[in-house]
């Protein structure tokens, strides 16, 4: 037996005995959770480098002003005049048009079954659902796959977030997801650069309508987060990271 093997076995034996003792102790102590042991959960917390923090914070404050002083009054007016069903139909319409980015996301993730389901959903909603205004697919089993996008596809290829970025108007993202969003805009029919809508005024109008239609729910979530936060900037960053990681872990 070489010295190395002996040391290894001794270490193993020591480790085994410690593990056994530990097991006993754990069994005895396992009756209750120690509140201090929850501090160990800190190790599982997500983080992202934020080298642009001063700029990001300035844009975050700018967005906050835009959301609450400009978008919110418009959103309230829109809600006051639009019936719920019309709001829902407008949301369905724009959501249906995002089919290409969901399809590409699925293909990048090699989720072929989900890609097929997305295609089925698009066909059903575009035809029976009158151009996507209605969403008959929601009642059909197998036509409600989880939403994927190009950012999730990039994540599945092993690309990390890179660093944190706050974009004017649209808010938090990361380098990877920003590239993903850029890719999404290439395959979707309304945004530039390959927009299927030639008239720029119509295109901007549609994009504005989509933002305003989504704004009630988004603004409510934003305000809830901001009002209950100790540090709204950090709260938003962590919420973004947790949401994206949950999506990519699906």
């Amino acid at each position, binding site marked *: 037996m070489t010295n190395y093997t002996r040391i290894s076995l001794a270490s193993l034996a020591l480790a085994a005995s410690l593990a056994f003792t530990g097991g006993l102790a754990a069994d005895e102590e396992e*009756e209750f959770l120690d*509140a201090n042991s929850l501090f160990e959960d800190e190790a*599982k917390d997500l983080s992202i480098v934020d080298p642009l923090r001063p700029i990001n914070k300035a844009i975050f404050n700018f967005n906050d002003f835009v959301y609450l002083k400009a978008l919110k009054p418009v959103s309230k007016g829109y*809600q006051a005049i639009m019936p719920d069903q019309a709001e829902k139909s407008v949301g369905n319409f724009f959501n249906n048009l995002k089919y290409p980015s969901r399809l590409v996301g699925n293909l990048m993730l090699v989720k072929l079954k989900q890609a097929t389901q997305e295609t089925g959903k698009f066909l059903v909603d575009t035809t029976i659902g009158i151009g996507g205004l209605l969403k008959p697919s929601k009642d059909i089993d197998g036509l409600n796959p989880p939403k994927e996008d190009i950012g999730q596809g990039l994540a599945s290829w092993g690309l990390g977030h890179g660093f944190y970025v706050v974009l004017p108007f649209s808010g938090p993202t990361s380098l990877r997801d920003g590239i993903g969003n850029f890719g999404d805009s290439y395959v979707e029919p309304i945004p530039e650069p390959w927009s299927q809508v030639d008239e720029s005024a119509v295109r901007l109008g549609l994009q504005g309508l989509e933002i305003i239609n989504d704004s009630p729910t988004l603004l*409510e*979530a934003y305000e809830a987060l901001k009002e209950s936060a100790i540090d709204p900037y950090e709260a938003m960053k962590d919420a973004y990271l947790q949401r994206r990681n*949950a999506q990519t872990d699906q």
Partner: protein
Amino acid sequence: MTLAKLKTLILAAIVAVAINSVHGGDDPAEDLKAAIDKVVDILYLSEADADVDTKREQILNVMKEDFSFDIMIQSAIGRPWLDLTPEQRERIKVMMTDVLVRTFTSRLKDSKRPTLNYGEIKRLSKTRLSLPCAVKLGDLEVNLSYSIGKFPTGWAVYDILVENGSLVANYRSQFKTHFRTKGVDELEELLTKKLAEL
């Protein structure tokens, strides 16, 4: 017309866990469900039965009876908690609870009562459980999961996952940034200022 009251759905669920009726019960999941229902009942009383101030007062009274934000706040603050005096801990717990209650009771007018559909409880270990709950209002559905632990004082909620995002981890990221450059006095100042705004 309001499509969704996302804020009230989530915060109702959060504040519900402050009711510590999970203590000492044989079935922590059933006790937690009862506690949540109790708070949601108060929250969604009609305007004719109770105005916003009355609801806020009723919730705070219920919470004073048996209070259990302690573990969540301790876990959210993280290790700096160990350096706080008992008086500082108490003040921060009271102020944080007040921030949460005030945040969500500020816009309860005309809110409809959501439906709560609980999933099957998952036993993660002898001392940890998780209880999924889908909160639904109209077409909007928010998926929550309560993390419940068995502490020497009894069963208590130590985290809530909102659409797989940990509420405690979110606060921990905020407190971590705060304590990197500032102390507990500044935190108390911040909470006092926040409460004055709400």
